[in-house]
């Protein structure tokens, strides 16, 4: 949710241009997993800024708390312990919306203006237009949107679009005590990430790399991974996320074409009627049943 914007480049279920006079630089949040200590300050800051509160849950014997994203917890830390030849590696990933350049949620959404993408790359839900169908959940390659039981609207990370719009960094970035989360233009963030990757490689993490998956056109939340060749070890980060063929088929050109075909069918029926005439009982048979008349 955010204020009115003049920099909308994509709007769900809308086939005409959206207000797009204002151009803004493309931004990105970079999460350097090698610097994360799992303090959850970002989770707290997120709830503080957005004024959401999750119900107090139960301890499941692990650090993950809550166990999954919810309509109130738009970001959660996911903890993976890994035995390697270097010893124990603790891979802590801050999970949340990746703000895809080609967002599957937006493509799937049937409600006009319930999901928008700004020219700075942020993908935002406008809950007042949301009808609660959950198609965004079906379209998302990262399993991010959560449907609220309270109001049947979907919620997710906004990348603090309201803060970014007035020149502030997202709340999680502001609060991160180790500098594991940084924010800036996408170009700057890639540049920064390249420096971090080179540093990690010099320390023996030969497969270190940037996670900016091109299957969704790149993302506006990127990771620096120590093991970029195996994203799945970071609590199931997908290797090659994409909107996918099924969603493409479901939301692509087939539907307007099908609607057109139905209209042509109706036109064909009309033309058939006026050219061939109605299918009536023949005169011959009518004569046989003169008594009926």
């Amino acid at each position: 949710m955010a204020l009115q914007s003049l920099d909308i480049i994509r709007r769900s279920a809308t086939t005409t241009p959206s207000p797009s006079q204002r151009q803004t630089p493309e931004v990105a949040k970079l999460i350097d997993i090698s610097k994360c200590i799992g303090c959850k300050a970002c989770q707290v800051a997120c709830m503080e800024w957005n004024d959401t509160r999750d119900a107090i849950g139960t301890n499941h014997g692990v650090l993950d708390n809550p166990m999954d994203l919810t309509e109130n917890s738009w970001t959660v830390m996911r903890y993976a312990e890994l035995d390697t030849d270097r010893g124990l590696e603790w891979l802590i990933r801050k999970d949340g919306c990746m703000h895809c350049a080609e967002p599957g949620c937006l493509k799937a959404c049937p409600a006009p203006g319930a999901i928008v993408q700004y020219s700075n790359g942020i993908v935002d839900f406008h809950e007042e237009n949301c009808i609660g169908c959950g198609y965004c959940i079906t379209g998302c390659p990262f399993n991010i949107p959560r449907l609220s039981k309270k109001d049947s609207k979907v919620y997710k990370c906004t990348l603090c679009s309201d803060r970014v719009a007035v020149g502030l960094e997202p709340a999680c970035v502001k609060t991160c005590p180790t500098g594991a989360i940084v924010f800036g233009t996408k170009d700057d963030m890639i540049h920064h990430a390249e420096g971090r990757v080179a540093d990690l490689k010099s320390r023996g993490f030969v497969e270190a790399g940037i996670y900016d998956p091109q299957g969704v056109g790149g993302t506006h939340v990127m990771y620096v991974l120590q093991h970029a060749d195996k994203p799945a070890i970071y609590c199931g980060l997908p290797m090659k996320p994409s909107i996918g063929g099924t969603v493409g088929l479901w939301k692509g050109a087939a539907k307007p074409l099908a609607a057109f075909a139905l209209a042509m069918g109706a036109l064909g029926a009309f033309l058939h009627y006026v050219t061939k005439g109605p299918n009536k009982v023949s005169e011959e048979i009518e004569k046989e049943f003169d008594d009926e008349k």
Partner: protein
Amino acid sequence: MKNDPKKLLRYTPLERANHWLTAIIFMLLALSGLCFFYPGFYPLNQFFGGGVWTRIVHPFIGVVMAIPFGVMFFHYRQPNVMTPTDWKWLSHVREMVGGDDRNMPEAGKFNGGQKLLFWLLVACMVLLILSGIVIWRAYFSFLFPVAVIRFASVVHAVAATIMIALIMLHIYAAIWTKESIAAMLYGKVRRAWAKQHHPAWFRQMTGGDK
């Protein structure tokens, strides 16, 4: 006229009531479903109280439709069994559409086209109910993996398109074939009509040519 004793009973009052009930529910179902089909149809949600209400009621209308449709299926499945004559009828359908029915094999109570339509509608309805359950986010989607939900979304859209096309065909066939709408409204048909369009059924009903 309507109560002419020489007329033949084609549809009983219960059959007629059930048919029109199904038809009305189908219209509501198609209009509400089209809202989510393509943005151009989204304004149809105004008939149902807005986008959120349309999302809420559409699946329930589907559940309601399954009842009279199910009744129709069990009632009509026997008379709609395809026979070799029906396939032959279908192979001549181009002549029929062209306006010449002199070479058409004799149709029974239902002709080959009507029977094929029946089975295609049944197939669409089954697919729509099954896929509809999978994509019913409020109650069932959490039971299925996302790949299944995506597949069901496609199945639902494809089956709905086909079913709408079939119903359009059904409606046009009824408009084109004079007196058949009255048959479904009032139940009885003239003997001449029966002999013209369903000769085998006519003989079965009258035991002869007249």
